């Protein structure tokens, strides 16, 4: 995990309004959920970005994809996404060793996929730009 991964996990898992909507208070996963994870849950992963390398400090510019999956309904996934947004959009994350000076939701996405049992799983989430500097 890089420093932003840890900051995101801490922020999301500390949001009780968010975790109260999930299967368990720890249903927040990095990159992908375990096969046995119950719905709903949240997954976050680095979508793009990295060091900017434009000045002597350690400026980083990352795009994270943070999304909710729900087997109940699109509305359920959307409600979780709204809580994620409330925790991240235009907020300041605590990033060890860095200052987070920009965190914003840039794009919102919705989709659905199907489990082998043909049960639909709804996704609602967004791409967040996170910029940090030393």
């Amino acid at each position, binding site marked *: 995990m890089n420093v932003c991964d840890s900051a995101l996990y801490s922020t999301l898992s500390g949001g009780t309004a968010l975790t109260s909507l999930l299967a368990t208070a720890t249903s927040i996963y990095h990159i*992908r*959920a375990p096969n046995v994870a119950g719905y709903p849950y949240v997954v976050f992963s680095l*979508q793009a*970005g990295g060091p900017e390398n434009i000045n002597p400090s350690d400026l980083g510019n990352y795009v994270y994809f943070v*999304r909710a*999956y729900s087997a109940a309904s699109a509305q359920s996934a959307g409600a979780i996404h709204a809580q994620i947004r409330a925790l991240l959009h235009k907020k300041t994350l605590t990033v060890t060793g860095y200052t987070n000076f920009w965190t914003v939701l840039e794009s919102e996405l919705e989709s659905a996929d199907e*489990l082998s049992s043909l049960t639909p799983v709804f996704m609602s989430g967004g791409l967040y730009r996170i910029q940090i500097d030393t």
Partner: protein
Amino acid sequence: MPSDLNWNLDTSELDRIIRDADTNTDKIVRKLAFDGERYAKEEAAVETSAMRNSVYVVTSKEDHYQQAAQDAKSKNPGVQTEPHPTPGEGEARFGPCVDYAIHQEFGTSKMAAHPFVTPAVEKIRKEFEDGTTYREMVEK
């Protein structure tokens, strides 16, 4: 001392920039799109090569969909493809046209994402913002 002060404003350079603006915008947008296609192809996960082959550019003046769809189907005959929406004047679009590409880009509830278009967009954003693209296309 002079009795009055005069400024002579030479607008010839400004006139040239304005005159060339539409042409330069088109050139820059086209270059960004083709750079995006190249970066996305470099980052694309490869199993049959169909998804990588399906990445193409469409502008208001040219459309490479037929070739990209044909190239994708040559690697995976069963794959479904769909063209990008037609861009407006001065716009361009790039990306894959196979149906499963969105699941690779953003993952699913049971599969990790393997992004290749978003990283390409980030690379061309950086080149656009730091002036690299403008210098290559306009100031060369």
